[in-house]
């Protein structure tokens, strides 16, 4: 257990103690069974009947979206659905986690989590999107532990070859200390201090204000620096500058040194004035202090001793898989918004700590749980369970990135490119084709080449900068974009080699068409009613190609495609 | 005269920012319009200062031929006559005549070569001809479609030129009120597509002594209209041929700012006073695009006047100072070297 028991957790102490016992007993068990146990306890308490287990098709689509960002091709879907081995779900999870798509997908996810679509107010001063995502891709490909990644980002000043692009976290926020403070708290500790200022408990307010300014004190000396020679953006830091603050409620003044929640302040070391800088500030010179407060933040914050650090990432990874945090909203960890399953959140946080912040390991455990593998359909006569019971798989919007790439995937634009690239690779290196094919670099290039095609769609569906992706809130503008933005219909129309339409055209029977269409777009085989619909539509239509386009286009516009379910 | 030896001969100080300046016909006095709603007169030698309360910002200053009267044009649409022969009571001259002349700003007022007429123009797009002696309106000239920035009488005593924001120049026969011809100098106009606004116009305008050339000054190459980022420019027209300009005089190296005042020296040198991030006096030789000499001024400049003796320049500054520059070698230096 986390040794820092603060007053936030105090309210939950009785429950924590109760769980402690069961938790210790369960140590021998794997985490995924523990997850199910904790979830089931609440079902029993509240007499909730959970949904049945997801079908293979439901599971396949969901876990592919969650771990690889894209749905499988029809070939892959058939193979999985027809596989009769017992542990095929676990094998699928492992193969997805090992795929290059995992890293590419997680880079897109954490791009949005960490940068929140912000761009520096002078856009050219920012790290370019592809560079930043490549940095994240590399990190997820090597399954860099979360504490290390957090350290790389918070500690980056833009100069280091490997961690340089991490400086995007600061640049995207125009290196504005208040903005960075708020987002460090929100994204790494799960606490939005600014929103919590609305709370009416003055004691709580003061407590937060001191914490807020404790983090602020780490950052106040850091500023943006543009190196003229290389035209690169970096961070400079001064060796002086302190933080004073006044409570708006009580008028009390405070002065604080860098301090993390639950910890003592870190005083600056005593130094002679002449030795304050490694590189002294001057015009067009990047100041480097001998003692960097920001480096202190990078080394002190990403540790299990920092209150909230482990729980935040555990909760965020849970939400990534389950569509909702155990603490929800994700940046609202505070006493008045307790976790729905405190004992489970602790178990997940502990797991993060015990595995040295192994992201893949936690995602794997969640994916293997029965809770994750529930259906999104509730049983007949059953009322819809509340989302925080996790008794039903939620309907979640595909993210802008998922939607963009899955449009290309389902219409076969992406698989056709993969096929092309494979043929080329086969010719170039027939001997190690199989090895090379699995390589991230090779795979990434295919995506990079299609980036231009996906980008407008992603842009149309992306939230405004700084606004975290919330619940599904479809807009008319987005739908108009789909309906009348010819480009995407043309994609579905499939006038290119290897398109879905060209494949459907070759199929003889309506049944074959229905199978291929549903497997390609919706990752499942059609039900009888759907087979009939396809057959009828083809039959009554004079122009078979047009009919196929209509069927495909309707599926791409369907809620079933738009949602992760 | 040696412009390369130009130095500050007098520094006349005031506390309010200045926007215009003129030597009087005697060259003994200099007048400057200030943002404190007054025009100020300095005796250049003694530094004695007299207030002419105008109750408006004055950009246009002109004198009767005998130099005994000054006529000011203000942002309140009034022309005011001050008799300079009167004794100033408590350091202040009282207006002799006030005429509500235009709707809105009057940006320029000038006296005809024979001294009989004065012309004024402003934001109401009209040029008006007045009897200099009694302030009676004689004629109204309509034809401009943007704010009129400047006026100049041709030495021939027959023609008047008016120039506007959009750099249209209209040559009038002011005796009849007829438009003779129109010109344009588009280099002094910028339409900022980002900010949807025009910026430019003739900030300064003047004829040379024999009337063969007309100079207009302002700003060119504006890249940001809000910040006023552009380069100072003086264009010279051939009076007979009209547009396009014979030449555009620019600074050597891209200086930032506006040429707020231009003078054509009888000996040929073209002189511009620049206001921008810094103030400059620029000197060009006829026919040369880049300045051959420049002086950095202690503050941004707003106007320029050439003295009747052709040896001095006056510049009006934001810091409230009028500088009198002498275009020859400093006397003290001679003594020291001797």
């Amino acid at each position: 257990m986390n040794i820092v028991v603060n007053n936030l957790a105090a309210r939950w102490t009785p429950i924590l103690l109760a769980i402690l016992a069961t938790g210790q007993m369960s140590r021998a068990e794997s985490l995924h069974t523990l997850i199910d146990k904790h979830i089931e306890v609440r079902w029993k308490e509240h007499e909730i009947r959970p949904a049945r287990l997801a079908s293979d098709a439901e599971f396949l689509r969901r876990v592919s979206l969650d771990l690889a960002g894209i749905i499988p091709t029809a070939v892959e879907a058939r193979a999985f659905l027809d596989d009769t081995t017992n542990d095929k779900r676990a094998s699928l999870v492992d193969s997805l986690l090992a795929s290059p798509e995992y890293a590419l997908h997680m880079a897109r996810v954490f791009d949005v989590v960490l940068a929140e679509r912000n761009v520096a107010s002078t856009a050219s001063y920012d790290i370019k999107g592809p560079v930043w995502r490549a940095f994240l891709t590399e990190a997820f490909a090597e399954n860099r532990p979360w504490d290390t990644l957090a350290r790389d980002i918070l500690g980056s000043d833009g100069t280091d070859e490997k961690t340089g692009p991490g400086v995007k976290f600061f640049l995207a926020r125009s290196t504005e200390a208040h903005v960075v403070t708020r987002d460090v708290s929100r994204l790494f500790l799960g606490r939005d201090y600014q929103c919590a200022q609305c709370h009416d408990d003055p004691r709580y307010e003061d407590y937060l204000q001191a914490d807020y300014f404790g983090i602020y004190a780490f950052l106040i000396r850091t500023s943006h620096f543009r190196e003229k020679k290389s035209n690169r953006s970096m961070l400079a830091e001064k060796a002086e500058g302190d933080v004073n603050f006044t409570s708006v409620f009580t008028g009390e003044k405070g002065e604080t040194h860098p301090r993390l929640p639950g910890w003592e302040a870190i005083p600056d070391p005593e130094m002679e004035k002449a030795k304050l800088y490694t590189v002294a500030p001057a015009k067009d010179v990047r100041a480097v202090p001998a003692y960097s407060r920001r480096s202190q933040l990078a080394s002190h914050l990403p540790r299990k001793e920092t209150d909230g650090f482990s729980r935040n990432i555990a909760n965020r990874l849970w939400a990534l898989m389950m569509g909702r945090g155990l603490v929800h909203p994700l940046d609202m960890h505070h006493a008045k918004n307790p976790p729905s399953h405190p004992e489970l959140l602790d178990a997940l946080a502990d797991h993060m700590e015990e595995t040295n912040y192994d992201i893949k390991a936690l995602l794997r455990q969640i994916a293997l749980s029965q809770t994750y593998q529930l259906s999104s359909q509730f049983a007949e006569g059953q009322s819809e369970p509340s989302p925080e019971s996790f008794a039903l798989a939620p309907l979640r919007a595909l993210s802008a990135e998922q939607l963009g790439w899955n449009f290309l995937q389902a219409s076969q634009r992406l698989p056709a490119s993969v096929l092309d690239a494979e043929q080329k690779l086969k010719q170039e290196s027939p001997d190690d084709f199989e090895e090379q094919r699995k390589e991230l670099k090779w795979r990434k290039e295919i995506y990079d080449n299609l980036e231009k095609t996906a980008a407008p769609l992603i842009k149309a569906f992306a939230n405004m900068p700084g606004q975290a992706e919330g619940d599904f809130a479809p807009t008319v503008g987005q739908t108009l974009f789909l309906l009348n933005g010819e480009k995407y219909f043309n994609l579905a129309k499939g006038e290119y080699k290897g398109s879905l339409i060209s494949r459907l055209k070759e199929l003889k029977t309506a049944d074959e068409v229905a199978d291929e269409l549903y497997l390609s777009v919706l990752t499942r085989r059609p039900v009888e009613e759907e087979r009939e619909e396809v057959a009828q539509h083809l039959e009554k239509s004079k122009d078979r190609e047009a009919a196929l386009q209509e069927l495909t286009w309707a599926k791409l516009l369907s809620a079933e495609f738009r949602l992760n379910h | 005269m040696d412009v390369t030896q130009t130095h500050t001969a007098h520094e006349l100080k005031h506390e309010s920012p200045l926007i215009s300046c003129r030597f009087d016909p005697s060259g003994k006095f200099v007048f400057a319009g200030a943002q404190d709603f007054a025009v100020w007169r300095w005796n250049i030698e003694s530094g004695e200062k007299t207030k002419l309360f105008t109750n408006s910002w004055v950009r246009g200053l002109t004198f009767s031929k005998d130099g005994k009267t000054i006529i000011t044009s203000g942002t309140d649409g009034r022309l005011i006559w001050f008799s300079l022969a009167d004794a100033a009571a408590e350091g202040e001259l009282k207006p002799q005549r006030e005429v509500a002349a235009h709707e809105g700003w009057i940006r320029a007022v000038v006296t005809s070569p024979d001294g009989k007429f004065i012309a004024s123009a402003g934001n109401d797009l009209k040029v008006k001809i007045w009897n200099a002696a009694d302030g009676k309106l004689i004629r109204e000239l309509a034809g401009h479609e943007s704010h009129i920035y400047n006026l100049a009488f041709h030495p021939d005593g027959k023609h008047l030129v008016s120039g506007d924001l959009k750099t249209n120049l209209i040559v009038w026969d002011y005796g009849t009120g007829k438009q003779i011809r129109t010109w344009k100098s588009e280099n002094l106009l910028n339409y900022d597509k980002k900010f949807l606004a025009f910026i430019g116009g003739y900030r300064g305008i003047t004829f040379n002594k024999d009337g063969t050339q007309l100079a207009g000054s302002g700003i060119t190459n504006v890249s940001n209209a809000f910040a006023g980022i552009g380069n100072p420019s003086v264009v010279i027209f051939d009076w007979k041929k009209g547009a396009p300009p014979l030449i555009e005089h620019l600074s050597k190296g891209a200086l930032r700012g506006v040429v707020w005042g231009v003078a054509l020296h009888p000996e040929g040198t073209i002189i511009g006073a620049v206001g921008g991030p810094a103030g400059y006096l620029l000197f060009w030789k006829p026919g040369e695009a880049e300045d051959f000499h420049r002086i950095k001024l202690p503050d941004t400049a707003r106007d320029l006047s050439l003295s009747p003796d052709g040896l001095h320049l006056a510049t009006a500054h934001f810091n409230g100072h009028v500088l009198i520059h002498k275009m020859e070698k400093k006397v003290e230096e001679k003594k020291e070297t001797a």
Partner: protein
Amino acid sequence: MLGGTIGSLGMGLGAYPLLAGEVEKSRKKLLLIFLSGGPSQLETWDPKPGTKYGGPLLAIPTSVKGTHISELLPNTAKVMHQLAVIRSLNTGIADHFQGHYALQSGRTVPGFPVIGSALAKLLEQDGDQLPGYVEMRRDGPKAYTDVGDAGFLGPKYESVKVINAEPPDFLIRPDTFSESKAQVVDQLRVNSDQRFLQGRSELPIRAYGGTFSRAVALMKQRGIFDIEKESASDRELYGSHLFGRHCLMARRLLESGVSCVKVVSHDWDAHQENFHWHQQRCSEFDRTFPALVTDFDRRGLLEDTLVVVMGEMGRTPQINNRGGRDHWGKAWSMAMTGCGVKRGIIHGKTNAEGTEVAEGEVHGGDLFNTFLRALDISPREKYQMTGQPIPAGDPAGSTIREVLV
């Protein structure tokens, strides 16, 4: 269950009546005229002629005895009896981005909806097909006007954007895609969604389906963005410049049932030659705004429409060495008229040189709450968001009772 939203699609694409007439009359509306860049209070609502920082421009009398405004607004002066002017804003913000956000959201903490999005939500009625919030601006580089709209209310309440008086993007079906084909596809999509609905959470599926019917409604109604449909005399009344065309389109949209329209008048950021800039900008404004006030009044629109004119900040009293005025949040002005607002009054004042508020100080949050009150919405009304209910107005802000009826 399904009949309401999805089933009705089967009736064909023509079956989307606009909410109009009686229903619309009862709904409050907002027209926000945003003078972006920060107009100078001294060259608009609060002239100080003849004072140290007053500048060269004069003040002129207005239709309200004893009240003067800048000579740059001669037509506006004639409708002064219709306006409530606040001369005592102290928002303390001298920054475009922060000002744009704070003045429109009533908050300084990020994440809150701007007034247009807030009203799209708060004034929403069942069955609405048109967007609740339309924003009009000129084309141009991404400017500080884009501060995000809906905040935590989510994309549904983001503005629909009209750029350069053109209808929003994608309102017209591509030539290659016939109406009948669209209907066929839509029927297939609806069938698909109906099957998918079985045993699943209805809300997201219906929300998504709803965007299709609203999209089709908007396509059918794209004429509401076409001011050529207005009479020639009305087009002349509002003027042919972009601001005029946007204001006329705003009238058209408000009359069609859009609850909030924002028209942006750009480029008041006069860091140099302030007086020249204000001559240009004010002449455009003064050409249209007073005509709009009179027209709205004549048509009865002012009875249920709040009209607000403001920028994100004012400009410094001090005139800089380029003849400009710089950013300023300490003592500046705005104006409003329409529903819930007293007419022909001035609230608050600045000191003689305009450097400080002397009476009736108003903060950003106060303004926002006052807008809500004028529209009969309590600032304490709460958005029911995940996590916690959030009050619509700023709890620290007060309402400026003096300007309300």
